[in-house]
């Protein structure tokens, strides 16, 4: 790269102001800025009181104690209880985030994974995990997109993805109801012969929508002996 070419925001391609590098000198920050301040300000972190399982910001009319109603429903069902130890989602899935993720995943703008690299890395380091596992895509979907977005996020964060799972069914879930998705037979199968007994596993995905994808993945890992399965998503 040309020494004089300005650093550009990965999202809007605007120049990242020099001011920021001054700030980083004063604050002794070593982190490379991937996005400009304007874009950064539109990525809203999930803060405040969260559901202890799925990590969503708690809305008082939709929760009981420290669990949201969704998670209460999941936990009531014996076959799903305790499957997913804990989910952490970094940002709100607002319109801006929808656009960023759509460009990343559907348009295939791979390098947007770096937008989340810093935060993803520091949060992942705080979760006990022997393996970081991407949610797999089917072969057709992988060919269509050219890459697996979960894997791209892990690699982008400078960590090693361990592909323990593979897809059985196609991903075409979006038209099914929540009920269908929950009672769907197995979506994933174990890909690896790795001994999972007593292991802690962290699943990584781009969005937490209903939580059923992550729970399906978690359950099969638990059945294979994993001790705890947590998950991390960029948005929810």
């Amino acid at each position, binding site marked *: 790269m040309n020494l004089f*070419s300005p650093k550009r925001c990965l999202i809007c391609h605007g120049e990242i102001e020099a001011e920021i590098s001054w700030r980083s000198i004063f604050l002794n920050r070593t982190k490379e800025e991937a996005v400009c301040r304007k874009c950064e300000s539109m990525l809203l972190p999930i803060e405040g009181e969260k559901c202890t399982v799925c990590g969503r910001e708690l809305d008082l009319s939709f929760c009981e104690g420290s669990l949201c109603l969704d998670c209460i429903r999941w936990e009531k069902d014996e076959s799903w209880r305790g499957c997913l130890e804990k989910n952490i989602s970094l940002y709100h899935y607002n319109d801006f985030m929808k656009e960023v993720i759509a460009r990343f995943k559907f*348009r*295939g*703008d*791979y*390098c947007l994974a770096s937008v989340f690299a810093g935060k993803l890395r520091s949060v992942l380091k705080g979760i006990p995990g022997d393996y970081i596992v991407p949610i797999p895509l089917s072969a057709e979907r992988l*060919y269509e997109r*050219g*890459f697996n977005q979960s894997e791209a996020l892990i690699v982008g964060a400078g960590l090693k993805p361990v592909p323990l799972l593979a897809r059985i069914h196609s991903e075409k879930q979006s038209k099914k109801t929540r009920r269908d998705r929950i009672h769907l037979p197995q979506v994933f199968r174990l890909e690896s012969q790795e001994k999972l007994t007593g292991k802690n596993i962290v699943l990584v995905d781009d969005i937490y929508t209903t939580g059923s994808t992550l729970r399906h993945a978690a359950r099969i890992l638990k059945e294979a002996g994993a001790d705890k399965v947590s998950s991390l998503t960029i948005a929810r």
Partner: protein
Amino acid sequence: MRFAVIGQKVVPESLLKSPSPTLPISKISSIPTPQQNLSFHFNPEIQAVLQGKQLLMDDLPFSLEEIQEHYENGWLTYRNGIEFHGKTVLCQRCGNSDSSWFASFPCARCGESCIYCRRCLIMGRVSACTPLIGWRDPDADGRTNIAILSSMKLLQWTGSLSDGQREASGRVEQAVISGQELLVWAVCGAGKTEILFKGIEQALARGQRVCIATPRTDVVLELTPRLKAVFPEIPVASLYGGSEDRHNHAPLTISTTHQLFRFYHAFDTLIVDEVDAFPFSVDETLRHAVKNARKPESTVIYLTATPSRSWQRECRLGKRAYVTIPARFHRHPLPVPELIWCGNWGKQLEREKLPDNVIRWVKIRLDAGKQALVFAPKIELMKKILTRLRKLHPDIESVYAEDPDRKEKVMKMRNKEIPLLLTTTILERGVTFPDIDVAVIGAEAEIFTESALVQIAGRAGRSASHPTGDVTFFHYGRTEEMLRAKRVIEEMNREATKRCLLD
């Protein structure tokens, strides 16, 4: 995708009958084009989708086998999406070669680290293993039935042309017939759409495909019904971001300059409107789009009120064919800008003041009830000027490009509910008010280029009922750009006088 080179053709990895070494398509330095098999029964649906385009495999609702079969019979072409020239990388679709717009990823399609273009990502990802697919017509190509077309009277237009327009119209017609490039240098308000009609008729009558490309969507929307009305027998495709005419292979296409990226060797006559306008002048890649979209032997007509300095020079040196329309349709001269020094206006503005001569200029207009359009270099400065000017009249308004009330304010200005409208340079094109005076505060600012200033001056005296208007550039130091703008306007008036185009 990975391809193997087998004899005089390339074959996609998944269609190989026996294992052969394969490469991502961009690593195959020259992709062979098999000889065209004229007895091959091609699929007209593929032709309809592909003709004149450059599309991705993902855009085509046909099987890979069928696409490959058309390629092997010489009816379809593969080109590299990304090309490597030494260290530089070039996106063949959008022409981008700026390294900050490229990134790479571990690609599941070719199994290698694959460079992709982020510049045109919105149209589907072009990466180093992406073929661009095009259609190949036989040489005496699939033109509309010429005999039928040329026997019809295609142009249904009863308007008349000014003398200046008539000459330009003739030159356009000639350029179409002889397949040449022509620059039409028409002053603001000359009426440039009408001069295209005869040339377009000539092209259509020859069974040619014609495209008018313009930078702004609102111009596409305005031109489409106008051209449909004058060419009632001709299907017209209208293309802009979000339009539905995507695959329409019409004889006459009206498109945003941006949508040209989808075309490849598509047009016999390509008319490029406002060559100097954003984003065309800034965007090298759009030049590439023009090069791709025109057929190798074709006519290109460039329209502009303000050609770049290098084009002006080429015209003077006889290196570029051009024709001018130096006078407006109403046969009155262009208002010549007056350059007035107003001191350090920026400093005065910090104390909520404006130079006396600027205030006087505004007061005279307010007292006379003459509407005015005043340009400022920046939004923040414009807001400060507004505060000061509102002390003179509370109804004075300001507007800028992203102003949510932009449309409403422009409308109010048209209805004469606003005595003076302050604006940033963004409104310089397209927007016209019939009877106004125009001023620039801070004409020395960098954004006021020669072309911007000519456009700004061109806002005054537009209508036949009010053909005059004052244009004043208030400045804190003359710039070369201001002087050039003034000189160009004076030259146009001189030429118009000489050619008897003024009353």
